[in-house]
């Protein structure tokens, strides 16, 4: 197999790498792109732990080949906060409502929640519950995660009004 040269954007920064054609986007992000915040949970696309946004859409980065990201924009959890901000308001809400225990599912969970609320800013609790079904958490039982996501949604709704 011959290696391929690719370039992509990760959290707004250009990344160039020479990769094996069978390298996953997850491996690229963790090893070559300085993004170890993307976590490997199962490697079979089930747990959602490795979720990133690819051009704004959530994907399991373990199931995407690095070469497929050529020319695209990847957002990891570290891309949520704006310049000069330590945390995005959704991250602060997770902190305030204890939506994170061991924290291993948190990067993927935050990205899925942010993506869904961007498209559905008034989503109710049951819609949010359904939206997060692809991101497993073994610590929280999801109740406090939903509390955190709802509190952030309410913050944003008030802000829009």
């Amino acid at each position, binding site marked *: 197999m011959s290696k391929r040269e690719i370039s992509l954007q990760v959290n707004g920064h250009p990344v160039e790498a020479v990769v094996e054609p069978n390298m996953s986007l997850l491996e690229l992000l963790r090893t070559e792109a300085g993004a*170890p*915040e993307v*976590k*490997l*949970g*199962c*490697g*079979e696309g*089930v*747990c959602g*732990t490795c979720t990133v946004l690819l051009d704004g859409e959530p994907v399991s980065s373990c199931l995407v080949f690095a070469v497929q990201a050529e020319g695209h924009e990847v957002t*990891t*959890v*570290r891309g949520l*906060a704006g310049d000069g901000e*330590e*945390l995005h308001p959704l*991250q*602060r809400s*997770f*902190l*305030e*409502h*204890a*939506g*994170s*225990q*061991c*924290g*291993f*599912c*948190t*990067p993927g969970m*935050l990205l899925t929640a942010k993506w869904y609320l961007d498209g559905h800013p008034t989503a109710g*609790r049951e819609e949010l*519950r*359904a939206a*997060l*079904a*692809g*991101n*497993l*958490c*073994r*610590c*929280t*039982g*999801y*109740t*406090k*995660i*939903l509390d955190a996501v709802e509190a952030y949604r309410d913050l944003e709704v008030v802000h829009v009004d």
Partner: protein
Amino acid sequence: MSIDTEVTIEAPERPDTEAPPKIRPAPHRDFIEKVAGTLRYADDWGFPGMLHGVVVRAQLPSARIVSIDTSAASAVRGVRAVMTAADIPHNGILDEASGLGVDAIVQPVLAADRVRYDGEPVALVAAETPGAAAEAASLVEIEYEDLAGVFDPEEALRDDAPAVHAGGNRYVTWRSSIGDVDAAMQSADLVVEETYRSQRVDHAYLEPEAGIGWIDSDGVLTLRISTQVIEHAREIAEILELPHSRVRVIAAYMGGGFGGKEDMTVEPFIALLVWKTRRPVRMVWTRQESLLARYKRHPFLMHYRTGVTDDGTIVAQDVRIIGDAGAYPLLSSRVLFAAGVNSTGPYRTANARVESTAVFTNSVPTSAMRGFGAMQVVFAYESQMDRIAESLGLDPAEVRERNFVRQGDPRVTGETIDTGVGVGDCMRRALSELGPPTPPDPARPHTRIGRGFGCSMQPYGRSVFFADRASAWIGLEKDGTMVIRAGVTDLGAGQAASLANIAGEVLGITVDRTSVHIGDSALTPLTGGTFATRQLYMSGNAVLKVARGLRAKLEPVAAALLECDAAELRFDENRVWAGRRSITIGELSRAAEHQSVMPYHHDTFDAETGKFDPETGRGRSFPDCTHGAHAVEVEVDTATGEVRILKYVAVHDIGRAINMQRVEGQIQGAVAQGVGYALSEEVEVSGGVVQSTLFADYLIPTSVDLPDIKAIGLELHPGKGPFGARGVGEPPIGPPPAALAS
């Protein structure tokens, strides 16, 4: 084996329950790093020149190893080491797990001549790339001679069963009794007899087993591991025949543990490869490898006979439990001990007999998992209570009320329950919180609404015969910030954060001005591992003791500066106050040091100790228990059998909350795992081979499988933790299967 027929109890260090903590909601630093994505887990570290390690695993459950050929594997480009049992200085894991000297069987690090379970480690590979390591692993040629295996624990107990180890398949049997069970059973108006089975389940933490090792300064073999127990450093030293002081284990913050990172995982293998290659080595197990071969929760066979009078009063309990230990002892003796002594539940009886046996089979080993033997039995004893109520036409809550244990009651071991029992309050609260029944949905005619509940008691702290202890160190910097050092490992439940809360309460220092250094066998005072719901009890009490000791040293200095009596001093908001005058903690720290009163302190907390006699089954078992009750409402589709949980309430008497939000989080998470255990999770094993090796097969609850879980921590009866807290990490995992079944 030490056998003392008399029950001797040394005077315990009594927790001070007079000073309730104020909750300081400031988040501890690790949670900020977690939501930011910047926390470095075990697999997020690397070194230049690092190698990648892989375990080669057996592909038969019971076999003799005829030969191992590593030549093809060694020839793969980039391979730096291929190791087998013959390369290990001491091929045995030394862990006297029972504390009572019943462990005679030594588990090899790598199988030498005999394979006892499918997936057992046989060889190790280290290579320059993960790909080369995987390729070489596939080229290690192992020639086996297939041997008969045994996969069912009852069959394993038969005389003609294939022996997993020389000496028979019965590993350990614990027996305790009180009163005259046979006579009481004969006098009973009704005897309810039933057998219950529970299945094998996996911890399924989202972070797979991982770590990295290197040789650090002074030749110290250093391992940074996702582990619950840094004290394994000593076992690793024994394997390599090194002085204990030459091995250091650092515990990374874990992406979940739940008991699955209590026994060693990757660390002995990394240690061997580092020592052989003199290079840094990283090892990460795949999810599939973890599901295949990582130790599971024991399947139990539980036979119960309960004798009651017509009004539902229990007069006798007779319990026999068989636990499938799989191929090696690990912590099975302790798990079955916990199962036996807790098998009668939160119910009083003057006559009880319990027997619990761990049996070897050629299945994947079982060991610690949240609830540790005391959770499987909840389903059984609560099902018995429901059957009793049904048989007698009584209300199930009333039958329980009639039988709940109280402070001062004896347990089956002969010891006395010495703290208050709030299980009845928990039950009443859980039932009332469930509210009015949800009406059936006319649009779903095949569905029925059902309700159930279950009560439990679960110990916290290690069995008292371990003479458990924990040490901690606290110091103040010149700027008034605080440093805590304690060998605690952090599972994600806020173990480090709790220590900051407790010390901050005594010394008036806020969390944002506190750094907690945890989990380093070389640099932090040892506390023992994070398991058995013991860290709040042990490290929490240690930090409380040290903080109070440090404050006592500093109070005379502060009193002189503020020209007041030490009794008038108040430590709050990073200052020391005498009325409305105050100095900063930094000023106090500098003044103390100037007077050669060093602003740091180290001390050790000794847990309650006691003796247990395995011959008579009498003595002291656990320091204390946490009680609780869960209530649930479900919708059942009578056509498909599908169960949808509509409401869930979990109530526990937690004595005192150090942080109520984290208490609720522990309860909610344990409920989720308990619901998975009841409804969807099973490690399926066929002929000794695990079939469910994908997350697509092993189904842990998703967000849509659970309703909002209402978690309530009642502060009723002070326990033995700091400020009267009771441990809450494990207790809430027991009731969900019982509540759902009823």
